[in-house]
């Protein structure tokens, strides 16, 4: 037992250090600032909306659906690694102890989001429904129990089926969880109890199957790797995660953009950078995401000052992150040897960013049409982007 206790705590500490290392960048990054503004604006709009909301609004169903949906996504955090299938094999019979620790952590790390979503909905429930305070708290307990069951069922299901057909299990749990929360919100307690019993029975049936099977290391290791990759990808938007190679997609529908680059020695870096930007998911989706946030804020937030600040902050974030991503030079690349001017890459990156920031500006402008001074965010985006590019340092220069 001691042995596995040690294995778990060592991994857990290492994992926590890794998470903290990168979360620091996330919270101190410029995007965090944008999120504060966006959350503030959304909160304000939410409170405005609460005052006008109609009594017939189906709050129970909306809250149950959102919370139930998120709740069913209960990917276990096992911290298993590839060598485990060899080195932990002799300890197979003691592994339930390890998994118990893993599931406890999984529950605590995931319960926060569910609880927060519910708490955010409390003002809505108070406005639209006639639930008393104690009833609202009681329902929170039901939600926590449901989440506990979801975590255990998903783990046991993955174990028993070695990772296969997970979607079926998730949809089933989603459905049952949504029904259970809805019943709780409408105070049909007998239904809640029936659904809980159903879930518990489902869990024990799976747990019985689990006991008959060897540990599906292959599936758990893969799931764990995907989970960590997801985290690193996320962290990569805020800071440079070493040796993270994002996936590549051809995106043929954007091929016409490459026609902007003429065939000449002077355009060699442009030839490369256009393709790098468009085909690397990390770069391209970063732009898509930030542009979408900026556009949605422009579309739905009617306070000009807020949309301007958000547009500026997001233009800054898009420019600086893409500039760093495209210019920073970690590994050796063949273009370091090309007989071309050393600053050609910088100029190429600038051209690509200018084009895509103008597109961002146009999209945001189209989304703010109808507002007075609808063209201001577009001008802000272009000005901020240009200024950001000029005033930040070139990351490829300092490493040389």
């Amino acid at each position, binding site marked *: 037992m001691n042995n596995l206790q040690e294995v778990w705590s060592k991994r857990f500490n290492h994992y926590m250090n890794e998470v903290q290392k990168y979360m620091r960048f996330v919270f101190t990054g410029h995007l965090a600032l944008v999120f504060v503004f966006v959350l503030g604006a959304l909160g304000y709009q939410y409170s405005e909306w609460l005052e006008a909301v109609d009594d017939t609004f189906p709050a129970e169903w909306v809250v149950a659906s959102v919370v139930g949906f998120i709740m069913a996504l209960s990917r276990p955090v096992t911290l298993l690694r590839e060598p485990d299938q060899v080195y932990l094999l002799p300890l197979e019979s003691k592994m339930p102890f390890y998994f118990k620790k893993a599931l406890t952590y999984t529950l605590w790390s995931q319960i926060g989001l569910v609880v927060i979503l519910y708490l955010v909905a409390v003002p809505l429930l108070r406005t639209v429904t006639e639930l008393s305070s104690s009833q609202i708290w009681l329902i929170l307990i039901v939600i926590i129990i449901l989440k506990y069951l979801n975590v255990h069922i998903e783990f046991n299901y993955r174990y028993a089926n070695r990772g296969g057909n997970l979607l079926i299990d998730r949809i089933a749990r989603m459905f049952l969880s949504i029904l259970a929360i809805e019943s709780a919100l409408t105070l049909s307690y007998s239904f809640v109890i029936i659904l809980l019993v159903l879930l518990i029975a489902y869990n024990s049936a799976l747990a019985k199957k689990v006991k008959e099977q060897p540990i599906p290391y292959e599936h758990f290791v893969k799931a764990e790797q995907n989970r960590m990759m997801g985290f690193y990808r996320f962290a990569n938007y805020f800071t440079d995660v070493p040796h993270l190679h994002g996936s*590549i997609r051809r995106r043929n529908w954007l091929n016409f953009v490459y026609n902007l680059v003429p065939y000449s020695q002077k355009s060699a870096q442009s030839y490369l950078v256009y*393709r*790098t930007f468009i085909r690397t998911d990390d770069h391209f989706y970063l732009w898509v995401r930030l542009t979408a946030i900026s556009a949605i804020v422009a579309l739905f937030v009617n306070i000009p000052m807020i949309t301007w600040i958000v547009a500026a902050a997001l233009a800054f974030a898009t420019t600086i992150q893409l500039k760093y991503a495209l210019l920073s030079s970690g590994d*050796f*690349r*063949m273009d*370091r040897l*090309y*007989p071309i001017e*050393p600053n050609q890459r910088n100029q190429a990156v600038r051209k690509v960013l200018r084009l895509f920031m103008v597109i961002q500006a146009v999209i945001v402008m189209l989304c703010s049409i109808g507002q007075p001074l609808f063209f201001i965010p577009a001008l802000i985006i272009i000005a901020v982007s240009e200024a950001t590019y000029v005033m930040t340092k070139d990351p490829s220069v300092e490493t040389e």
Partner: protein
Amino acid sequence: MTVLQLTNVTGGYTRKPVIKELSFTIGEGELVGLIGLNGAGKSTTIKHIIGTLLPQNGEIRLNGVTLNENLNQYRSSFSFIPETPVLYDELTLKEHLELTAMAYGIDRQTLKSRSEVLLKEFRMEKRLNWFPSHFSKGMRQKVMIMCAFLVDPQLYIIDEPFVGLDPLGIQSLLDQMDEKKKAGASILMSTHILSTAEKHCDRIILLHEGRVRAQGTMNDLRRAFKMPDATLDDLYIAMTKEQDNE
């Protein structure tokens, strides 16, 4: 005519030099093998020649100029095939060739005619629109080789070219090297496959602990080691023993 000239080159990654007072030359149409134990300084030497490391002392002249005197002329005079293929994940095979051609100022017509020959030689015609993630190690190596030969420079620098290539690939590479040599190009090749080196190299440079231990034709080396009938393998092992005795 001397194509590449190293004069007393000392250098490394840190203050502590890995290669010490290295001097050798490579002439027109010459294939020179750079041989040495692991850690002898082969890769460091190559890094200095391609200019990713700068010498702490001494100078390297390629076609008469140093990197500092004329960066673009220096860089257009050689092409490099690294030991581990370095490809752009986001470019197809065709785009690797096109990018290389653009970067070296090769016009479209020349690109087309040269790449047709190379693609056929290395049997890669059908993979033009593939991304490198779908390539095997050998295919990746072939992409690097094709890009290097596409440039058609004065000097080829080839680091461990035969690892990962299938026998047909090795033969194609040797054929290409031979053809370029006949046209007057020079080749510097580092390798551990000694039998191939012995068979194909005009001259051999034996590196040992960052210094040139011996250089010349096979006969020169045999004289230097006083082993008249030795193969390159024998000489290599003799050098290893020398190291053990120290």
